């Protein structure tokens, strides 16, 4: 046997398979990968009883494991994975085989063709992925994050990403106002990032959007949807929001678009968010934490609209049974009707007006976020200091929040040994109030 020549032939088939994938000919790719896997398996098996032929043995066994996975032959792949994990001394190969094992297990119940397609699809998605880590801001439950945290991150991330994609697609396709509603529904279908990897500790996840040409999709749409997560990450998510950046953003997007894109991000990245988001550079795997969006940036970036009761609006969802009876007459019966009310807005304030105390002037205007829903009423918060106050009445809620913030400031004045969070809050207070210590006098 001449393993070098057989291995070369296997690599040739593998190359042809990759070319077929680039041309989106997945059935052809599967055929080539099967041939490649067959040959590489022969070579790897030849080395099983030849421990003296390292490093060739370990490298070829790894190659056979991945070739079989790419061909959807997970059982055969497992054979090489287990052999490699038992006998190779190379740490890198061991770690790659561990990844391969995870994938082999997940493909177990699929047919070889489906498994091959799945493996190659996930591989290509992973190459386009952005890698995030979500960590709790305080370690009350160790490094574990709650489902609610993951939900909060994914909801706001998705809202922001979809708003970004909507703006990009609108520019690309010159969508007319009449078609905006239909267009928004299409965006919902097109922009649906997939989780391509996840791991505990804290919570790591990689995400990418679909890249395949689906029926009826133009080339420019496919190009944009394939890269939308990376573009969003680079242009929006990690944007440091300097004054120059904010100016550029406001020149590139309409006022509504800026609000739709960045308002959800301010929730993920504000000082009072109960978690931190980091991301990994795909080349060097260095972890960087996303910078917080402070109130001053928020004020420059987002527009504040005066609202009325009408703006709060009313959402109604109904389930109606429609039935055609003889003579073409249609009868309707409402089975379920629910009214939902919610709204989110900001107000600018330049002084605190706590209960039973003189007003406190601030050095700069700040934005208070107000979230209204029909169950809990008004919830007031300030992005730079983690405080929330809720009341069913707006005016009472506002005074309640002023009072809460005022007492928080007094408590910070009194705290000599400040922890990390208190120190951050104190820095904000010093920026807002010239001499906070004077409040005690």
């Amino acid at each position: 046997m001449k393993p070098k020549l057989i291995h070369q032939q296997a690599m040739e088939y593998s190359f042809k398979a990759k070319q077929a994938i680039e041309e989106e000919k997945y059935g052809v790719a599967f055929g080539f990968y099967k041939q490649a896997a067959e040959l590489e398996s022969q070579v790897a098996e030849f080395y099983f009883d030849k421990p003296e032929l390292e490093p060739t043995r370990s490298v070829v066994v790894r190659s056979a494991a991945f070739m079989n996975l790419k061909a959807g032959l997970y059982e055969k792949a497992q054979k090489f994975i287990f052999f490699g994990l038992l006998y190779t001394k190379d740490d890198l190969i061991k770690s790659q085989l561990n990844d391969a094992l995870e994938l082999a297990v997940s493909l177990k119940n699929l047919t070889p063709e489906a498994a091959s397609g799945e493996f190659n699809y996930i591989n290509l998605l992973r190459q386009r992925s952005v890698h995030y880590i979500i960590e709790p801001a305080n370690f009350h439950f160790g490094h574990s994050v709650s489902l609610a945290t993951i939900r909060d991150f994914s909801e706001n991330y998705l809202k922001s990403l979809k708003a970004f994609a909507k703006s990009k697609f609108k520019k690309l396709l010159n969508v007319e106002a009449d078609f905006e509603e239909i267009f928004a529904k299409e965006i919902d279908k097109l922009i649906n990032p997939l989780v391509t990897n996840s791991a505990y500790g804290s919570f790591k996840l990689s995400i990418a959007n679909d890249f395949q040409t689906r029926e009826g999709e133009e080339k420019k749409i496919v190009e944009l949807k394939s890269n939308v997560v990376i573009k969003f990450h680079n242009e929006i998510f990690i944007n440091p929001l300097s004054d120059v950046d904010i100016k550029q953003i406001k020149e590139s997007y309409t006022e509504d678009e800026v609000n739709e894109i960045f308002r959800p991000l301010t929730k993920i990245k504000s000082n009072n968010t109960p978690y931190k988001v980091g991301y990994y550079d795909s080349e060097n795997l260095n972890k960087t934490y996303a910078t917080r969006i402070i109130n001053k940036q928020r004020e420059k970036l987002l527009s504040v609209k005066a609202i009325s009761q009408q703006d709060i609006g009313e959402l109604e969802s109904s389930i109606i049974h429609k039935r055609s009876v003889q003579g073409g007459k249609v009868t309707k019966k409402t089975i379920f009707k629910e009214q939902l009310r919610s709204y989110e807005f900001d107000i600018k304030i330049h002084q605190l007006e706590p209960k039973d105390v003189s007003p406190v002037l601030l050095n700069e205007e700040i934005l208070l976020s107000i979230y209204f829903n029909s169950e809990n009423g008004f919830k007031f918060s300030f992005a730079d200091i983690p405080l929330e106050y809720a009341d069913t009445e707006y005016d009472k809620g506002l005074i309640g929040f002023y009072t809460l913030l005022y007492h928080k400031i007094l408590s910070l004045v009194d705290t000599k040994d400040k922890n990390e969070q208190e120190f951050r809050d104190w820095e904000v207070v010093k920026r807002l109030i010239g001499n906070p210590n004077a409040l005690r006098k």
Partner: protein
Amino acid sequence: MDEFNLNQTLNFLSGPPKEHIIVHNYWAATAFDRYHKDSKAEIEFILHGELRKAILNWDSNFSKATMKEDKDMANHGGVAMAWFVMSVLLNYKYVEQTEIGDGVDYRFLKTEPNDDDLNFLNDYHYVEISGILEESRTNTLIGRIKDKHQQIIRGGKRDEPSSVIVTLFSKPITIKEIHK
């Protein structure tokens, strides 16, 4: 100034089939064509710290229908340039590829092992290869070279003969640094 053609790799390098080398050269040509006219450019090669300027020609007469992804252009084009540097400029006659999860890794040898050599992946020079179409605030040539050295360290190959080769197509420049 020396003048080269990217297709010279075909005469100097064995291991991959000729068709394979040609396809990678097409990717590199597609990347070069984005920034340079008439299928030629003055290129800087910085090999082990020494600058060598040359004129590089390439073939642009092929269908670019499937050469659409920027990421593939940078990656495959980067491989074509690394193959050119290692074989035409540095006299490595043979490259062996093996399969890994998301692609292929590359090991170069000065001479091709015999067909009946059973330990044919021994005594190789391992190369981490990369390509960048154009630099950005977060993606620079110097940064990428540093990252590739880090990858060699993380991959446990810090004590084996290894190099990094990174090409920036917009300038154009190819840098090869020996890791060890």
